[in-house]
Structure formats: C-alpha cells, structure tokens
C-alpha cells in the first residue's frame, strides 16, 4: 500500500541524510501530519457510504484506521529514538508536565485500543460495547488536532485547513449527534 512505501521512502532519505536539513524534524512532521491525514480519511468513509451508497468503500475503513495508528506509533517511536534519543528522564518529564505531549499520548492510547480490537473476533466478543469503544475516535481525532496545534509556534494555513476538515466531517454526522444528544438528555 501507498502509505507503507511512502513511509519507507522518507525514512530511507532521513537516514541517508542527503535530502533533509533536519531529518528528525522531517520525519516527525511527516508521520504526524500523515497520521492526521489518514485518520481524517478514515472518517470520510462512513459519510460517503451513507450519502452515495458506495458500500464497496467500507473495505477501506479499517485499513485506513490501522494505517493512521501505524503512523502515530512511528511518530512516537521516532520522537523517543531520534528527538529525545532515549533520554527517559526527559520523556517522563514531558509526559507529566507538557500538555501537548499528554494530549497526543491520550489520543494514541485510544487509537491503540481501537487498533487492537479491530478484528472480527474482538468485535464479536465485545458485542454492543465494541461500537461504544470505537466511537472514541470522536474523542481521539480532536485530541490529535489539539496536539498538533499546541506544538506549533504560530497557526498557519495548514492547521486551519485540518480543523475545517474535521468540522466538516462532524457536520456530516449531525443526525447521529442529534440522536445521541436526545438519548443522553431525555
């Protein structure tokens, strides 16, 4: 799949050093924004199916979610290996005292839980609780964006576009949100 080839290509060049001035910043930015892209893409599948009856697209939803998780994990592993260079004390400090790191970490935990339970077996075992668990993507996605915005020195065009995209994806689900609201507030 394209996502895997692309990832290998960037890491090859980062290690070979010829292409990037700061390979560490390059891979962190690439895996971070890559994870956001894939996550948002996975969230466009259901609205597309509903609106245009494109049910064959359904087969793409799980791989997209899993690739978003893979990019997120690569992002964190790269941060620890190449940015902090295994300075565990600094990692611990960051996890305790740096809000944007904490937010990103929570999002990654949620995505990991969804990744692990994404198999048919887990779907069967969890029953109705499976959907509830996987609805946490609606918590994870805003957290991922918050993590990104919070890490920047100034907010340019790119992060604003990401926010608009997420907002649009949520608006496309407004009927589900209304239903959920009515059930939550009888």
């Amino acid at each position: 799949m394209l996502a895997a080839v692309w990832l290998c290509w960037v890491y090859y060049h980062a290690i070979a050093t010829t292409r990037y001035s700061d390979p560490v910043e390059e891979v962190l930015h690439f895996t971070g924004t890559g994870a956001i892209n894939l996550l948002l893409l996975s969230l466009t599948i259901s609205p597309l199916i509903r609106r245009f009856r494109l049910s064959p697209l359904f087969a793409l939803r799980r791989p997209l979610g899993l690739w978003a998780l893979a990019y997120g994990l690569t992002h964190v592993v790269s941060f620890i290996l190449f940015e902090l260079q295994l300075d565990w004390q600094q990692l611990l400090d960051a996890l305790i005292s740096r809000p944007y790191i904490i937010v990103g970490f929570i999002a990654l935990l949620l995505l990991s839980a969804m990744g692990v339970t994404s198999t048919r077996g887990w779907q069967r075992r969890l029953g109705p609780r499976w959907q509830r668990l996987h609805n946490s993507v609606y918590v994870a996605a805003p957290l991922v964006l918050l993590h990104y915005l919070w890490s920047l020195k100034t907010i340019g065009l790119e992060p604003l576009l990401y926010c608009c995209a997420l907002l649009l994806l949520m608006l496309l689900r407004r009927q589900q949100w209304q239903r959920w609201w009515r059930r939550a507030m009888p």
Partner: protein
Amino acid sequence: MTGYRRSSFSLPEHMVTDEKVYQSRRTLLKRLGYVGASGLLAPRTSLASGWFDDEPETAFKTVPLDAQAAPDVSTSETLTPEQRVISHNNFYEFGTAKSDPKNNAQGFKVDPWTLQIDGLVEAPYSLGYEDLTTAFPLQERIYRLRCVEAWSMVIPWIGFELNALLKKAKPMSSARYVAFETLYDPEQMPGQASRFVGGGIDYPYVEGLRIDEAMHPLTILSVGLYGKTLPAQNGAPIRLVVPWKYGFKSIKSIVRIRLTDTQPPTTWNRLAPQEYGFYANVNPAVDHPRWSQASERRITSGGLLARNRIDTLPFNGYSEVASLYKGMDLRRYY
C-alpha cells in the same frame, strides 16, 4: 496611397501580455503543477518540500567576501554544513516551514538597500548596499546558534561588531536601548502579504537590545557566511547575530537601527509574552512553557540516526556576558 498596413506579427496594445503577468507565468505554472502533481500522488514529486526548486535563472546571487579570521572569539566545534545552514531557516516573511525561506526568497532584491541609523544619536547616517560590506573591516567568527525550538548549529559568520556601527553615530547619553526593524515589503515577502503564509505575525519584524548588550564585542552585524555574502534566506544583506540569545533575537534583513530611551517592542514577545521575553538569553534552567530548554539537538552532517543531543549551556556557553545581568532574576527576565 500610403496605406498603413498592420504587419501580420504586430499586436494591438490591449493584446500584449502585461509584463507583470508575463513575469509571473512560472508562478502560475507552479500553481497548476501543485494540483496536477498531487492528483498523481506520486511520492517522488509530492514529497519533496520544494517541488520545482531547480530554477537556476531565479537563484539569489552571493559573492565571495574577504574577512579576517577571529580565532579568539570563534569556537572550534564541528561546523554545520553550509547546505544545512542555508536550507533550514526560520524567516517567516517567506513562510513558516523550514524549507520555505530557501524556496521563496530566491528572487529577493537587496541592491539597492538602505540601512538607517538614527534615534538618540548626534550623527544619524545611512548605509547603502555597497557600504554594508566596505564601511567596517570584516571578520570571520564561528559562533554557536541556539534556536528557541531546541536545535542548534555552528556557523562561520562574516561581519563586524555592532558597537562600531553605533559609535559612528555618536549615541547620546540618554540612549538606553537599540531597536531593529526588518524590511517591510509585502510584494517581495509573501509572509507579510498573507497572514496564512506569515504565521499571523504583525510585520515588520522588530527586535531590541539593551545598549550594553548591543555594545558588547560578541554582538555582530553579519553580512555573510561561509566566505560569501548572505543568502536571502539567511537575512541578506545584513542581519544581527547575538550568539548568547535564542535565534529569534538575531533579526534579519535590517533596514533601520534606532537608539531609544525606552525598551522597544519585540516581535515574538508581542505575539506570546508568556513564552518569549525581551531578553531571551539561552538558559537551560528556564523552560519554554511548552518544551524543555535543558538540552538541544546539534545539527551537523549526521542523519536520522546521529546521536547529537547535547546539554544546553547558560548563555549558550558565552559565559563572559553573565556580568551584564548581575543581580537580575533571569527566571523573571527570561
């Protein structure tokens, strides 16, 4: 009958392509290119940060500069390769990504240039483009540069001490601060023309130093690096270098230096006062509110696997400036 016949190749005035449009044809082609290439989603084209950056005819020109080596104020640490010094830049006037300045500043015009020195001085004066490299004897100084984002470089600058330029203007005794200002030219600097490109900074970029900091012999105005005049993306034709402060203090492409009796506003402090102070001295003991300043990644020639995290030193290792801040609480005056 002396008939006037239009030759087959002549065009009426209204059909001639305006020069501006003609000159921007590449920009237009580029924009079309963005759409086209992203449609293909081919990694080779869509990944490179500057997709069409091989355009020799627009490349910014630098010329060799002679300078006296200054070993007593130079570090002997491993230099950051020139290629990295000139392609990894924070210069938001040309875009917020590190590769943007190099990609967007190639057409930047620095000749003619006027640098105005005025304010609380007895003899205000100005320097033209030629004067910048000839008015004062040039030295080569190898300094560490520590960015507030916790990476650092080692760069061979060419320049002269700021105090030489200031003394020539005969500062009045009432002058207590020095204010610096970058060129404001939205037509050349896309970041100034659009808040989305320039990160929402209130331009022109301004910086300031206390007069004793400005007069310190380590503080230089740089007109070159690696033996040549400055590339546009590094702040051509003249920029400040204050090696013991975070990089954002070292303002680029300066058009005005003004002596004042009150502390001048500074760009990043105005944007986020709780994160960036007026002093901005490199200090491992005072973290940025969002990240640690205790250590840094030294960018040299290594790739992703380089072990280049080193401890950050107070005043970036230039401990001789510590006396300037005697008795000051550096946690408060960060």
